[in-house]
């Protein structure tokens, strides 16, 4: 069953069209990789799915579990199970990470009509997940992402993903800025979240990440469109030959 359906999506930013009719279907339980040159619109797509303001959808639609995602506010999307691991997670001084995690988790649960997590349950869960991701407890006492290294920020995104248990995870260049060990830890964290009910869209420039998180489908994006889709071998092909052939196609 289709979890996410992006149909002929056209998006403008500041009067300029960035996505020119993008179509993408992700079924439940599938892992899709999106690769493509700088500026091809990968982050734009992820932002529009998450509901970031400033993007004007001029045509097309996005369905999530059959519902019109574009009609929902970002927090409603999150509560429905959309999660974007940001390419550049922001620092939020003065908002303690633990307080943020608890507030966000309980806001999502409340929106779904579920009971709030009790404090001990919450703490146990955070401890468990952060341990598996090699995130020290004192990092969680700081402001959200404040003073985190690039790699720590990315791991903090995976921590949230594990905590919120979304049904669609979009990972925007999760591998950028990670050293080899950190990459493996983060990828293990992501793999641990694989389930028949959960889909992932992995945006990356490097085939290496896809050795860890093995995709079912690989898409090539160029100039605001998906120009080619294939199996995991497509990523290897790209690594060898680059994007030039697709730039012409776009």
């Amino acid at each position: 069953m289709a979890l996410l359906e992006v149909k002929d999506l056209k998006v403008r930013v500041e009067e300029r069209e960035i996505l020119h009719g993008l179509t993408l279907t992700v079924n439940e339980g599938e892992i899709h990789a999106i690769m493509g040159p700088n500026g091809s619109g990968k982050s734009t797509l992820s932002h529009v799915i998450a509901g970031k303001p400033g993007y004007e959808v001029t045509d097309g639609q996005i369905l999530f579990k059959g519902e019109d995602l574009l009609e929902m506010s970002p927090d409603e999307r999150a509560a429905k199970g959309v999660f974007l691991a940001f390419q550049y997670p922001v620092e939020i001084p003065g908002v303690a990470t633990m307080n943020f995690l608890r507030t966000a988790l309980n806001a999502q649960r409340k929106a779904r009509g579920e009971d709030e997590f009790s404090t001990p349950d919450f703490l146990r869960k955070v401890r468990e997940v952060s341990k598996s991701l090699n995130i020290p407890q004192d990092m969680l006492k700081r402001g959200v992402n404040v003073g985190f290294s690039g790699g720590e920020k990315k791991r903090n995104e995976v921590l949230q993903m594990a905590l919120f248990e979304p049904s669609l995870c979009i990972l925007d260049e999760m591998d950028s800025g990670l050293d080899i060990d950190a990459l493996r830890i983060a990828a293990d964290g992501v793999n641990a979240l694989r389930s028949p009910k959960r889909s992932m869209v992995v945006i990356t420039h490097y085939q290496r990440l896809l050795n860890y998180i093995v995709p079912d489908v690989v898409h090539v994006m160029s100039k605001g469109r998906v120009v080619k889709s294939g199996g995991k071998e497509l990523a290897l092909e790209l690594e060898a030959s680059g994007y030039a052939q697709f730039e012409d196609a776009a």
Partner: protein
Amino acid sequence: MNVAVAKTGKGRAVSDLFTSAEGRLPGSPGVTAVRREAFETYERLGLPHRRIEEWKYTDLRALVGEVLPLAAAPDAAALKRAADAVKAHAIDGARKLVLVDGVFAADLSDAKALAVEVGFKTLRETLEKDAGLLKTATVDAVIALNAAMATDGVVLSIADGAQLSAPIQIIHIATAASASAFSRSQVTIGKGSRATIVETFVAAGATAYQINDAVLVSVADDSDVAYIRLMDDAPDAVNVTSQFVTIGANVKYNFFNMTTGAAVSRLQGFITLAGEGSELSANGVNLLKKTEHGDTTLVVDHAVPNCVSREVFRAVLDDRAHSVFQGRIIVRPDAQKTDGKMMTRALLLSDEAEADNKPELEIFADDVSCGHGATAGALDDSLLFYLKARGLPEKQAQALLIQAFVGEAIEQIADDGLREHVIGIAERWLERRQ
């Protein structure tokens, strides 16, 4: 508008204000004479308006118009409401001193328990003997009016070396609608002592009331003092408070003010560093909405060398609220090695909100380090989006960022319990927004 007529009209109302109250104002004949003189000063000056430099941004003539008559003594129902308010706003473990409509309420206070550690009298008692407490170094119209009309207050004297085990909480409760309360208090802190004073302003059923309060604080050498003010008045109230603080040598004085109510409020503080080696930390938060107007005016006077002053103020402004911060740092010719900094930031939650900031450095010494900074702006959209993308609804996401913003001032409160109490008041203000 016919200005001449308006003035006459106000002049008459003002006189009535004093003559109708005079019989109820405590004090010896000598005190009465001082009151009369103070009232004449007030009448001559009238309510402050925008052409008076210090009141440029808080034009009381325009914002308030007239001073309401003195509140009548509270009846049984009002005292019951006051008792409930005391329960709701008391800080755990604090010794309470309660003023109801500006008059000390012994039944609601812990004066007996306090008297073991601290010298305590009411202003009323003090004025039977002399008028000294009605006199202050600085006089403006509002302070003169307070001297003329002050009905009561608390007079505390903390002995040399006293280490107070619990905060003293002065709770001002308004029960009378459309009436004024005038209070004046004194806090004298002896050498080498340690004390925490909290002042709380709340309403118990009263609306549209006016408060004019004055506090005279003096801190002797080597003391460590926290002074926290919580102005949580009714939304249509007026609260104008004047504080005079004189600080001795090697003192740590930690001042904090939070305003979460009142249609019009002004805290004017005159703080003099009169002994070397002292550290003043003066901080505050204004949380204002609708058409509320909140003014913090602080004059920090470095009269001697080698003192440090730090000011951190935050204003959060919703709707058409207006916040004013006027911070003056004076460094006298002798006050070398002064280190004085102030930083104010305003968070505008609406396009119609307004923040005025007027820093003034008056430096007469050459070997000093002084500075000020100010910013005003909206919440950061990228932070808001991050929080929303994690499931926080707009208002809740804003609340988290606002808490972080005001936290920069609140975290200056050293005591964990008091800091939590203050955070609780800020959180309730934020909840009312949601």
